Every structure is written in structure tokens, then in C-alpha cells.
């Protein structure tokens, strides 16, 4: 029983990290319809920004983290501005944007590997590494922070999307780009905002993993593809869905370990995903993709 509770708690922590990544990716995919695999590059970059801020510039941890999140948001925005929007101006179709995104992901991760070696780079996180005991469950403070950040980030994003004018513009574009343009919304600017927001919300996920086990160059690829699994499971176009999908994946991986050896973790998630798209292709809350492009 204690073991089960522990796995449940760990699953919730891992799930929160997946959820942040999935919410960011899902926001971008739902609004722009770009299959933005370079989201993984932003995820990896965020970790290295935080590491560089603390270890190279000697900034206090919290300052380094905040700056890293801002830098990640800017990176996401620049990817759209300098890559995707330029391609679209030349009449690129979705496939072209997807391939350029894949190319960028490969470039960024391998440049990180060349400059910083493929080995994990450790950060000093002080008291965050100390253990917390909640009944029979042991976690570190960092894990508690991860869950709190996921909840806070999700609530802030939802409030922004529902209440602010800019947030409403994002929702308008995601429900119908043509109609949004007709009522005078600048699609380019809404896309830039979406990329900045989606990157900023995924950045803490990358940074928390880096604080826990070190920054690694190739981790982003796995995370962005898991995020897309979470988004599809939750339902495309649904932010609550992406959140639930991410948490569900984390729980699945960890509860699976209860019965199945841990080296099969990733196989479990994808096995369930395949069953899922047979049984419920629209996910928990979403609608299914209408026509087949890409």
C-alpha cells in the first residue's frame, strides 16, 4: 500500500512536468496547427539557460530560473518569427513547416551536445534537494515545487485565455483563423504571442528536470513527443485535456512500474496510447483531427 502511494505521488510529480510541456505544445498546435517538434529544442534550451545563468554567470537560482523562462519564451517567439513565418510567406505548406521544425530540433540539440558534451550538467539547488515526508510518501521540495508550478501555470494560462483580450484573440484564432482575420485580428502577432506563451509554460518543465538530474542535450525530443501523446490523449485543442493527458502519462509510467520492470516504462505509455486511439481517438475532451494533412 505504501509503495502504491509512493508511486502515485511520483507519478503525479512526473505527470506535472509532462503536463507543463504538453499544455505548451497543445496551445501552439491548437492555435497554429504547426506540428512544432522544435518545442523540444526550447525545452532543452530552457534547461541550459538556467544552468548557464547559475553556473556561468553566478546568478542566484531564482533569478537564473526567471531569466531562463523569459529567454525560452523569446526563443519560441523567434522560431516562429524567423523560421515558420518566413517559410509561410514563401507559400510553405504544413509539411514544409514540420520538416524545418524537425531540422531545427536536430541542430539545436546537437549544437548543445557539441558545446557542452552529452553528459548531464548539474545545478546547485540547495534546500530543494531536501526530503519532505507526507505520511508514508517521500518527495523532495523540488518535486513539491513542480506540482505547485504546474497547477499555478495552468490556472494562470486559463485565466489569461478566458479573461484578457490577447487571450481571447488566441482562442478566436484557434477556433477559426479566417473568421479571426475578418474581425481584424493580426494572425502573425497572435501566433508570436502563442509561441512565447507556449514556450514560457513548457520552460519550467525543462528547468525542473535539469535541477533534478542535470541538463542534457537530447532530452527535449523525448519530452516533446510525449507531450504530443499527452495532447492527443487529452483531446486536441483542449488545454484542460493536455493537462490531464500529461498527468495521466506520468501516473501510467509510474504505476506501471508496480507490476512491470522499469525498463519497459516507455513501452507501457505508447502501448496504452495505441489502445487509446482505437478506443477513443478524440481523447478525453477533444475533437478528432478532421482531415489528414502532414
Amino acid at each position, binding site marked *: 500500500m505504501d509503495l502504491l502511494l509512493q508511486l502515485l505521488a511520483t507519478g503525479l510529480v512526473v505527470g506535472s512536468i509532462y503536463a507543463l510541456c504538453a499544455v505548451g505544445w497543445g*496551445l501552439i*498546435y*491548437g492555435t497554429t*496547427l504547426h*506540428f512544432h517538434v522544435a518545442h523540444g529544442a526550447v525545452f532543452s534550451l530552457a534547461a541550459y539557460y538556467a544552468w548557464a545563468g547559475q553556473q556561468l554567470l553566478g546568478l542566484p537560482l531564482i533569478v537564473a530560473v526567471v531569466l531562463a523562462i523569459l529567454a525560452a519564451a523569446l526563443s519560441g517567439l523567434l522560431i516562429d518569427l524567423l*523560421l515558420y513565418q*518566413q*517559410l509561410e510567406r*514563401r*507559400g*510553405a*505548406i*504544413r509539411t*514544409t*513547416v514540420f*520538416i*524545418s521544425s*524537425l*531540422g*531545427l*530540433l*536536430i*541542430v539545436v*540539440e*546537437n*549544437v548543445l551536445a*557539441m558545446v557542452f558534451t552529452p553528459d548531464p550538467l548539474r545545478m546547485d539547488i540547495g534546500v530543494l534537494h531536501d526530503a519532505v515526508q507526507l505520511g508514508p510518501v517521500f518527495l523532495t521540495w523540488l518535486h513539491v515545487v513542480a506540482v505547485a508550478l504546474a497547477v499555478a501555470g495552468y490556472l494562470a494560462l486559463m485565466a489569461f*485565455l*478566458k479573461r484578457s483580450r490577447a487571450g481571447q484573440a488566441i*482562442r478566436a484564432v*484557434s*477556433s*477559426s*483563423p*479566417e473568421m479571426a482575420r475578418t474581425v481584424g485580428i493580426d494572425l502573425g502577432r497572435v501566433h508570436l504571442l502563442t509561441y512565447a506563451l507556449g514556450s514560457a509554460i513548457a520552460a519550467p518543465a525543462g528547468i525542473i528536470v535539469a535541477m533534478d538530474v542535470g541538463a542534457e542535450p537530447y532530452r527535449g*525530443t523525448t519530452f516533446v513527443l510525449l507531450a*504530443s*501523446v499527452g495532447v*492527443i490523449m487529452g483531446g486536441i*485543442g483542449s*488545454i484542460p485535456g493536455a493537462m490531464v493527458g500529461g498527468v495521466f502519462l506520468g501516473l501510467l509510467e509510474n504505476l506501471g512500474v508496480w507490476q512491470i520492470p522499469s*525498463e*519497459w516504462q*516507455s*513501452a507501457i505509455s*505508447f*502501448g496504452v*496510447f*495505441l489502445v487509446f*486511439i*482505437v478506443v477513443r*481517438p478524440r481523447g478525453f475532451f477533444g*475533437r*478528432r*483531427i*478532421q*482531415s*489528414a*494533412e*502532414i
Partner: protein
Amino acid sequence: MTAYLAHYLVMVGIYSVLALSLNLLVGYVGIFSLAHAAIYGVGAYASALVALHLGLGFWGGLVVAAVAGACAAALVAIPSLRVAGDYYIVASFGLQVVLLTVFMNWTDVTNGHAGLPGIPRPRVLGWVVDTPFEYVALALALAALTYAICHRLTHSAFGRVLQAIRDDEIAAAAMGKNVVLNKIVIATISSALGALAGSLYAHYITYINPSSFALHESIFIMSLVILGGSDRLAGPIVGAFILLAVPEALKFLAIPDTVAAPMRQVLYGALLIIFMFVRPEGILGRARPKALEPPPVTSHAIG
């Protein structure tokens, strides 16, 4: 030097088979798969295992590899191709991860990271292939066979249905074509052919381990198709000739191995981006007429 050139040509043959078969999906139906390296691995493991344990020869191995590759792909294609194309990117990535996990962790059969050594050399018509020249001939013959099969497929009525699906899925369905079934069939054929390359690889190197079949290999095969030109049958072969020469060229620069591997990847990634700006149709591809572009897919309300 001759041995060096022969190795290059054998690898060009193997990668041509992989790229040609992947292009059946990417170029002719517009579906992206991130699992082709894993399918390549299924072919390699299947034919290595039957050669080592059952003493089945090269030809038997090829057949077993093709069947195994087809089954693995059908497992994912049947659920995920019933829904839209974006699902297949994710589902095929899932297949890649699951299969690689199987190669690494099903140690009783695959011997895990240590891999399978001592795979016998192929016997063709009673002749044991063991010189570099003979391997070149075998690899190029297999590539030619794959090319012929792809040519036949794409120039058949079936091939025209596939292209209709790629250009306008709804119109194809309206003409009474079974879109889903056609997609599943081509995904299965594509994988069966891709697995043949794995079989040849296993019998050529005579040793396999999981690291040859990882995700970056899938992305590399996709790069061959895209850079070569996905709407021409010969495009992927040109891609294989050029991109396989790149690492050989890098060898002449004195760069340590730890830097050379990521540097090669950076180069491939940069080429993908540059091509999307300058020549999205690839080296051999024909420019796409702008007016025929499908309209953007819309409507996924956020909230």
C-alpha cells in the same frame, strides 16, 4: 581504397532500399513515419535470429524479415491511420520507442545491448557472398529490385489512388476509394520493403545491436527522402548517394569522434532547414504549383 569505396556502395544500396520504401509513405501518400529505423531493425533481428537458430538461409531470412516488418507496421497503422495523418507521426514514434525497448530489454532473444554476433554470410545460388565486390553486387541488386517494385506500385491503379489521397483525401473518398484501407496497405508494404534492408545489413555486418536502429536513424532516413526529392522515384537514391558521402568527407578533417557525430547531425538538420527555404521539393523534385496547395486545415477551438 577499393574496400572503402565498396563499403560506401553497399551502404548506399542498403539506405536506398530504406529511403525508397519510406518514400512510398512520405512522397506518395504524404504520411510521415518516425519508425523506419525500428522496422529496419525488425528486419535485421528477424533474419539474424532465423539464421542463427533455425539455420535458415539468406532468402528465407529476407522473407521472414519482410513478414515481420509488415506485421510490426500493421500493428500501428491499423489503429492510427483510421484517424488523421498527424496521429501517425506520434504513433510511429511510439512504435520506434517500443521496438527499440524490445531490442534492448528482451535479452533472452535479442541479447540486449551486447547484440547478436556471428550472423552467417549470405549464400546466393550456392555461392557464399564474402568479398566486398560481391556484397556491392548484392546490395545494388536489392536496391534495383526495390526500385522496380516501387516503380510498378506507383504506376499502377493502386499508385494513382494513393496520389489522389495525398492530393485530396476527401475527393478520393468521394470517388468511392477506401482511403483508410489503401493507407494501411501501403504502410504495410513500405515496412516490408524497409525490413529487407535490415536483413541485408545483418548478413553484411554479421553483427547487430540496438544502437543501429535508434530514432536519429529514422530521422536520417527521412532526410534522405526529403533532400533527394520525395515526388520522384529516384529522389531518395540521390539523397542516399549524397548524404552518405558527407560523413566520409568529414573523416578527412581531423575532428575527434565525440564532436564529429553531433556535427554530422547538425549538418543534416541545417540542410533540412536550408532546403525548406531554397528548394522544399528536394534535389530531384518538381516544384509544386502554388495554386494546387490544399487549403489550411482549420478549427480546433482552444479552451
